[in-house]
């Protein structure tokens, strides 16, 4: 918490942190967010412009490609001083990978996987690996899907040793909670020794 002293008064601004929930379309991202969020998931949208640097106004924007990407998110108030946001990355839209802001400063990501469509989560794994954002893989167990051992998933998706793989049921609050805990614990192992608290 920080107190900002202005001319008018002293106002307290809570600290916020974010966790991303990623994976292919229909893999259960919003379901997971809803299972632990204190509010029904909200949605907002971002306009991403392909030539996004140096755009100060809309003059001359005709030549640029703009795409709208929708984002679902939930909120967990940890204390009056600290709020956790869960952002479900848009699954349907390939352009979310342009959205570096989402990953910036995030604790990390839970990449949800549907074993019937493993390929839909490749892109998310690649995204977080490249940006060195801590992530875990959560296998969302859909009814009627074949059960795979974590080793089989790791091998099929070429997930590096050291990246935790957990089973999850995105509909179950306790299961989603455990995935969050696993991610935060994993992120803590990624902090360099001697880094400031």
């Amino acid at each position, binding site marked *: 918490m*920080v107190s*900002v002293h*202005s*001319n*008018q*008064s002293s*106002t*307290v*601004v*809570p*600290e*916020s*942190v*974010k966790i991303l929930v990623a994976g292919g379309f229909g893999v259960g991202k919003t379901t997971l967010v809803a299972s*632990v969020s204190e509010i029904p998931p*909200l*949605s*907002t*949208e*971002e*306009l991403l*412009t392909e030539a996004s640097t140096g*755009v*100060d*106004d*809309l*003059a001359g924007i005709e030549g640029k490609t703009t795409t*709208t990407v929708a*984002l679902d*998110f939930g*909120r*967990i108030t*940890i*204390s009056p001083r*600290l*709020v*956790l*946001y869960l*952002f479900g990355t848009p699954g349907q839209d390939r352009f979310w990978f342009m959205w570096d*802001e*989402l990953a*910036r*400063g995030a*604790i990390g990501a839970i990449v949800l996987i549907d074993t019937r469509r493993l390929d839909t989560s490749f892109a998310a794994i690649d995204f977080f690996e490249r940006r060195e954002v801590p992530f875990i893989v959560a296998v969302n167990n859909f009814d009627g899907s074949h059960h795979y051992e974590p080793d089989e998933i790791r091998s099929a998706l070429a997930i590096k040793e050291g990246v935790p793989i957990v089973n999850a049921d995105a509909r179950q*609050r306790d299961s989603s*909670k455990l995935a*969050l*805990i696993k991610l*935060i*614990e994993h*992120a*803590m192992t990624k*902090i360099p020794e001697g*880094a*400031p*608290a």
Partner: protein
Amino acid sequence: MADNDAEWFDEAAGPLVRPYAMTGGRTRPGASWLDVATQVVTVPSTVERVGIGPEQHAILEMCHRALSVAEIAHYVNVPLVVVKVLISDLIDRGDVVVRPPAQALRAPGRELLQAVLDGVRAL
């Protein structure tokens, strides 16, 4: 055919033109570091605030309790890029406060992660 074209143009352009009219055509906020999760809090004022639009009045109304940029965008029903411009102006005016960018942008440290972990475990 011409009628169809006109209709298509209106429907496609309507939702875009309106938000950018709110921001005077700008798409880049002064406070470009504003994050989707940045908390925004209204600075209480006994003086009537003039020179701001209805969307900014709405933001000041809802942020007596801290809200993130993403929540504000949802409630005001405008894209994030637009709400950031609106909030950025309010910061410049001293109507709202946010955490300074140096704190907002750094990766969470051990102490903060431990607090989040404890909080999630207690859910």
